[in-house]
């Protein structure tokens, strides 16, 4: 695995970084869409996030990465039932051999999965399919979990989301909505949890994203190439330093990353305690009404992301400041719009905020 550029070393692009952090604090915010110019570090940021996230506990050998406190009971590793995917049974065999056949699932700390959905992935690998090897060699019908299973409890990243095959997009929409992957193919009938934060990136010049997919993303950020010289120099310098000696560069930023990681952990613990006063809810609803966003999803996302932000900042309750900061990413892609007016959506939100909160 190639060395990963540290998250805290990414220059600028604050909105993008904030959106990713918010989604890590509260996955229920529902995904991040990053659209913008080429070469602005979209993929870099997502990969960096993977290295930044605190580890989580997962059942040993469970292909779905079940939380030991809340197992889905789908595989042998979790509940010892009869249906077991290949990986699970192998791991089980190992643990039995180790002499520890405890009734409680064994768990270990694993990195939060950040799974790449590469272009050119085939459907069977995304949803999971019949394990061809076992079928051919032993004539057994076994399920081989796909990317959706691997992404459970983590992130699913689609680079160039606008170039993704339509039939895969349909699949993702369905799973992202239900948090569950239902596989009915090749005589298999399996459902497994697939709760993940969808992160998509792309360049609008290569085509738009389908409106339905757009709607699945909680936050949408626009990234632009920095235009001032000092920032650009810094971007290039850091990149260059990193490439010359990745290990030293990562070591130099390790402290910053660790600080951020601690803040994330603290924010997650703190999230449930953050209060959302009625007044803020009113403000959020008012803002959405003023902008004419469709449905309630906008308000919900706005509230959740403001809360996550408050938790991240260590504040006890949500206030207008938090709302203002997350309003644009939470609502930008929800304005009922003439699709041709997207350039104006940021300014529309700004105007509405100014009206709402008073200048």
């Amino acid at each position, binding site marked *: 695995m190639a060395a990963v550029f540290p998250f805290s070393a990414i220059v600028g692009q604050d909105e993008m970084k904030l959106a990713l952090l918010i989604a890590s604090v509260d996955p229920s915010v529902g995904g991040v869409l990053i659209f913008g110019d080429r070469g602005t570090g979209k993929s870099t940021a997502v990969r960096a996030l993977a290295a930044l996230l605190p580890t989580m506990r997962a059942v040993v050998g469970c292909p779905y990465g079940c939380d030991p406190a809340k197992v889905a009971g789908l595989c042998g590793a979790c509940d010892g039932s009869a249906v077991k995917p290949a990986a699970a049974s192998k791991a089980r065999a190992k643990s039995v051999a180790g002499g520890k056949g405890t009734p409680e699932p064994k768990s270990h700390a694993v990195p939060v999965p950040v799974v790449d959905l590469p272009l050119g992935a085939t459907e069977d690998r995304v949803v999971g399919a019949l394990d061809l*090897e076992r079928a051919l060699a032993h004539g057994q019908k076994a399920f081989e979990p796909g990317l959706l299973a691997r992404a459970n409890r983590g992130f699913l990243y689609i680079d160039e989301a606008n170039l993704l095959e339509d039939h895969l997009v349909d699949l993702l929409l369905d799973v992202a909505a239900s948090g569950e992957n239902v596989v009915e193919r090749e005589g298999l009938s399996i459902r497994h949890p697939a709760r993940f934060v969808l992160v998509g990136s792309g360049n609008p010049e290569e085509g738009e994203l389908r409106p339905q997919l757009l709607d699945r993303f909680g936050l949408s950020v626009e990234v632009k190439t920095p235009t001032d010289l000092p920032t650009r120099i810094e971007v290039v310098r850091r990149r260059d330093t990193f490439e010359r000696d990745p290990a030293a560069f990562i070591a130099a930023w390790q402290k910053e990353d660790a600080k951020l990681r601690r803040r994330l952990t603290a924010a997650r613990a703190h999230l449930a305690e953050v209060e959302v006063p009625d007044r803020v809810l009113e403000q959020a609803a008012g803002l959405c009404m003023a902008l004419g966003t469709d449905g309630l999803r906008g308000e919900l996302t706005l509230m959740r992301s403001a809360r996550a932000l408050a938790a991240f900042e260590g504040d006890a309750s949500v206030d207008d400041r938090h709302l203002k900061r997350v309003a644009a990413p939470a609502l930008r892609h929800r304005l009922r719009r003439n699709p041709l007016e997207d350039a104006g959506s940021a300014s529309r939100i700004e105007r509405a905020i100014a009206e709402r909160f008073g200048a």
Partner: protein
Amino acid sequence: MPAPAPRSPWADAMDTLALFAVDPHGLGGVLLRARAGPVRDRWLQGLREALPASAPVRRIPLQIGDGRLLGGLDLAATLNAGRPVAERGLLAEVDGGIALVAMAERIGTGIAAKIAAALDHAEIRIEREGFSTLLPTRFGVVALDESAHEDESVPAALVERLAFLVDLGDLPLREAIEPAPDRDAVEAARATLPSVLLDDEMLEALCGTALALGIDSPRATIAAIRAARASAALAGRDRVLEADASLAARLVFAPRATRIPADPQAEPEPPAEEPPPPPPPPDDRPDESPPDEQTPAEDQPLDDRVLEAVKAAIPAGLLALLQAGLQPKQARSAGGRSGAMQRGQRRGRPAGSRPGDPRSGQRLAVVDTLRAAAPWQPLRKREREASAGAGMARTGRRIDVRRDDFRVQRYRERAQTTTIFAVDASGSQALNRLAEAKGAVELLLADCYVRRDQVALIAFRGPGAEVVLPPTRSLTRAKRSLAGLPGGGGTPLASGIDASRLMADSVRRKGDSAVLVMITDGRGNLARDGRPDRERAQADALLAAAELRLCGVQALLIDTGPRPQPAAEKIAAAMGACYLALPYADSAALSGAVRQVVASETATGGRSRQGRGT
């Protein structure tokens, strides 16, 4: 220090080659714009000779499938072994070498994006056909761009990642004199490369230059830095000097410049203080137009000097174009040449498989078939053994596939439609018509946004026709080009029809269907050659219309004259187009009319076009 004044393109091409050979993966690659021919072959041969003998050079053909490109299930081996065997894709096979992308202007954005991802991450992630692997691969790309028309260009996502854009144009073979760098020199440079230092001053100068030239993507700057390092390594130095930075900036930035920096203060030469880098260039290069003034450059800041080196190398045509304020933004962020052709990967894309009989002309979905057959094998084996007990045992069959197992590939059926608007932007057409046409295009684009179709816009006025908007689905780009569409001048109707035909043809060649919507009052007054001659103009227009008809493009002619014009109707008849007089059409009425025609095209035309080849 190589001469900063215009040099022979071949000398530049050889410098590029040398730098690229030193660090193929770091630099990403070269977009080689040239026709197939001995000059291009000489360049490629030079590259092969400069690279280590062991470096693989593989060609990626236009029609490559994902299976070969990325890897997947090796069917023959799988059947033989009775267990899944992975096949390495081309991108993994070229590890350490060069991937030659032939006819890069025609590869789809999908393939381009896959190559780009492999370049970016130095590895290929494969999630296909039951395999999930990560293969490391470091390669450089040579994209052979043979585009002849404006409407063809290499996908921007790929161009963005290639450090160099080399245009050999129509260079005759006899001018390709400079020799390719020698393998040993390159080998030595490769060894020094990791230790080459680059001062902050150089880095800042390169960043400043990129900014001044309007090059947005940091990738270009990073490429220039690597090129500068490669140049220093070739010269056997362990520090990047100004000569290296200038050379790198010139080769990397000049073709990507989207604006000329503001100060038109003559064209000073940067100081020639360093010996030339080793691709030993013959000393005297034919300086075609040496700048007359030579300002003493020492007192200039470094970035200005680097900038000047680049400015001298910016092609004259681009300069004129930029200065005329033409295509101001299109080139921007298209990463190199402007107007990258965008198209979806929709035609004939597999959309899963379904049970069926492959003999009915459909493509067998091999893996799915095997997968369907797999669970039954033990059972069938037993069955077979039982039934064959008396007779001959059918030996040697490892897998028993039966008719019920066959799966055929399902493809997306709907072809993509591109609606081409050819808008008369002449004076007679008054500017408000143009505004309506723009409005209609915007409305249709909103429609296409949902249906994922494309629109294109051709404007004809003044001396000829111009492609304002190549087929696109991108709202961002469409809005940009629409906003800047000017009006006024004569009516070169024939040129407008010709341009539409060419575009319709190129859309067709990609397997999409085209619908032409021509908005004009039908009163051409400029002949094909651009001369004002009403008689000739009409005759030419009729001729062009007849040619268009032969192509069989579904067309709609909207007559926007104040009164319906017989001339327009005649042309519509000659084109085989529907004629619609809409003297006061507003954009909503226009787009309504177009929608109907498009609907009928997708219903009928989409199928009928299959018989016609290119």
